[in-house]
């Protein structure tokens, strides 16, 4: 039994490690793909070179991120079987078709048009190339749609029956399963998070170059676009996060109790614990700084509404409080910091100082990684908050794992850690190198790279007769 626990815990660590690495990349590619589609669309509409240059600039970064997303994603699609085979057997009839739809409607779309997007501008022309960019962008969104539907079903399972060999089987129509109760909230919340992640990454790159050369038109444009996104999406995200939280309270109250640090029930209004150290042994939050009754106000819109605590949940069904409590606060804190940057940028813009306030640029630079951290923290909150179940309330994590020996899982975990740190570490270094170069007026493609359009191509001909900064992506 101890041996078995060790194998399961190793498998959990391996899944958490590989999915965390993976998640960073799609969180970025969903955003950049849409950003690229907007840039190319604006270029087609206005014919302004700055958009084409920014397209080429971000396309190089996109290609690296996308490659890492693809290879780390293939790992995920097999790891359900290699390490969580009992879960796969039992939940496969319900979640399998949704994942198959992800492959059929999203992965092929992205992969099929990626080649044209990266290498095909001079072969297919501007309009068809824009179609390829759109196809990739739409593909990233469809992918998020299906995989988040799967994840949401695991959080809020509906529309199933259990057959005589213990499998979950569809029983109430697929519409109910796909649109399970937490899915709409999780989808919008996650896609907005991807947009914010990209906005702050793009904003930080723009800010970095503005701090060096405030006149660089590419840097100004990307910073301005990123700050519009921050100002518009951050408040929308906070509103959406609140709705998602209310939905979680309805369907997974134990998760919200852990997020709030509510070990005890509060019959006449629960306090909002801003900070503190959860102490699960003594069932209380040490050194708590709390606003009385504010949690009831947020969650029930009533100061005196009673809120149940973890004391109403059997010990064996409780999620680990500490991790969920902290990851939730990191996410929310970063969300409000993003809102702050967005408002600051609006103020600067209204004073016509968007490109002139170095402290705004420094703050935006510091916030560059904020989206990635917030996305991971949010993911940890929802996934650890689902514990100790894989299918919430129905199938325990401890009863989901594959019959593997601990040494086998330990060896694979070690191999994943080594390969991921080397490979993705190098990839992240390359991303920084690409982003450290300022966007140039005639944004080039790297020497020898397959993304070549210089030389005898139409794009170069356009360039020669045109002193605008126009150049094909």
């Amino acid at each position, binding site marked *: 039994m101890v041996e078995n626990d060790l194998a399961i815990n190793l498998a959990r660590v391996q899944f958490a490690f590989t999915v965390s690495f993976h998640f960073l990349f799609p969180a970025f590619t969903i955003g950049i793909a849409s950003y690229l589609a907007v840039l190319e669309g604006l270029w087609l509409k206005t014919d302004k070179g700055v958009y084409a240059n920014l397209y080429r600039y971000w396309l190089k970064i996109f290609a690296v991120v996308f490659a890492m997303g693809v290879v780390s994603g293939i790992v995920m699609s097999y790891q359900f079987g290699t390490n969580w085979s009992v879960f796969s*057997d039992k939940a*496969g009839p319900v979640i399998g078709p949704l994942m198959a739809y992800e492959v*059929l409607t999203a992965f092929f779309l992205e992969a099929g048009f*990626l080649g044209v997007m990266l290498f095909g501008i001079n072969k297919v022309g501007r309009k068809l190339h824009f179609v390829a960019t759109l196809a990739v962008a739409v593909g990233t969104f469809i992918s998020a749609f299906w995989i988040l539907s799967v994840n949401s079903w695991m959080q809020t399972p509906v529309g199933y029956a259990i057959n005589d060999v213990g499998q979950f089987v569809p029983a109430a129509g697929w519409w109910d399963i796909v649109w399970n109760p937490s899915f709409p909230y999780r989808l919008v919340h996650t896609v907005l998070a991807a947009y914010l992640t990209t906005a702050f990454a793009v904003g930080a790159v723009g800010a970095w170059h503005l701090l060096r050369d405030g006149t660089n038109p590419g840097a100004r444009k990307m910073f301005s676009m990123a700050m519009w996104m921050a100002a518009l999406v951050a408040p929308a995200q906070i509103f959406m996060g609140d709705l998602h939280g209310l939905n979680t309270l309805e369907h997974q109250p134990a998760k919200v109790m852990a997020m709030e640090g509510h070990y005890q029930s509060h019959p006449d209004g629960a306090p909002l614990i801003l900070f503190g150290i959860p102490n699960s042994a003594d069932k209380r939050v040490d050194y708590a700084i709390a606003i009385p009754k504010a949690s009831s106000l947020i969650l029930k819109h009533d100061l005196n509404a009673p809120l149940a605590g973890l004391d109403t949940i059997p010990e064996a069904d409780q999620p680990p409080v500490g991790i969920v409590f902290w990851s939730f606060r990191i996410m929310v804190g970063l969300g409000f910091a993003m809102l702050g940057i967005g408002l600051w940028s609006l103020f600067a813009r209204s004073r016509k100082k968007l490109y002139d306030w170095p402290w705004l640029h420094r703050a935006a630079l510091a916030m560059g990684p904020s989206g990635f951290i917030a996305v991971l923290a949010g993911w940890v909150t929802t996934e650890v908050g689902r514990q100790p179940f894989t299918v919430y309330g129905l199938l325990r994590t401890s009863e989901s794992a594959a*019959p593997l020996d601990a040494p086998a899982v330990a060896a694979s975990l070690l191999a994943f850690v080594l390969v991921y740190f080397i490979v993705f570490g190098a990839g992240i270094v390359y991303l920084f190198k690409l982003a450290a170069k300022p966007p140039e007026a005639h944004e080039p493609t790297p020497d020898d790279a397959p993304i070549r359009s210089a030389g005898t191509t139409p794009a170069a001909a356009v360039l020669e007769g045109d002193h605008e900064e126009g150049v094909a992506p």
Partner: protein
Amino acid sequence: MNGLDLTVIWAGIIAFAVVIYVIMDGFDLGIGILFPNFRVGPDRDTAMNSIAPVWDGNETWLVLGGGGLLAAFPLAYAIILPALYAPIIAMLLGLVLRGVAFEFRWRDPAHRARWDLAFTAGSVIATFAQGVTLGALLQGITVEGRAYAGGWWEWLTPFSLLTGFALLVGYALLGCCWLIWKTEGALQRQCYSYAGRLGILLLVAIAVVSIATPFLEAEYYTRWLAYPGVLATAQIPLATLIISFLYFRSLSKRQQATPFFYALGLFGLSLVGLGVSMWPDVIPGRVTIWEAAAPYESQLFMLVGAAIMVPIILAYTAWAYWVFRGKVGSDGYH
């Protein structure tokens, strides 16, 4: 089953995905296997550029094979993957290494040699692991109830190592023929010289695997050699001989595109042979496709999607290949 057996249809769709995967990712993995033999500089760049726009789409068929297996035959997915844990993990890590090399080698010229090495190592590991996986599945898996019940080294046998090596040869041959088609000059001449030797090696490998297979399981023996079925199954080695002859003749005539298609034919026949051995089992000798099948509702829901999407996927994939048709140069497609 009322006339239309979805389980059989789904077995067909997954077999189709596996066939498409093997021939499509086969040639780009094969280029990775051959890569160290190409001259550093324009030849390597050309070889890489010939697959850069399509490798990602090729690999997606592997995800469809895995995802489809989970969805249509969850029990098979749940038994096979833990049973083949080490080779599957090795394959995934190999695919990680080679997949990023496509981008990274251009981004870091100072360390290009290292990423070229990662490209080759990843391709060799992934291919060998796929071959081992196939062999291990064919030789049988210990099953108890609804789970794998063997140890974590059960897959390792002389037969699975043999299939691992056989697939290395096969993919290298596909990659070689792809480059004959897509390149010219010295690189093409080099590939012509490899294609003959690899062809002979592949025929030897096919022969050894084919002779060994009927003795792995009594059922394979009857499926292949019992009368009157043998009249049909005997056509497979016969066709293999004919296509081999055409393959070598196309090489000696210095034809450019046709060797690739004859190579695909050899692969197709090998996979038909695999089908003859396994049908109607999904885990040979243990679990049939009907025992592993997901419920009717799950299969039907997916079938709607597959029936609509697969033709569309094939259409735009063909378009993407068409966009990048013709010979490729060291500085990309013109």
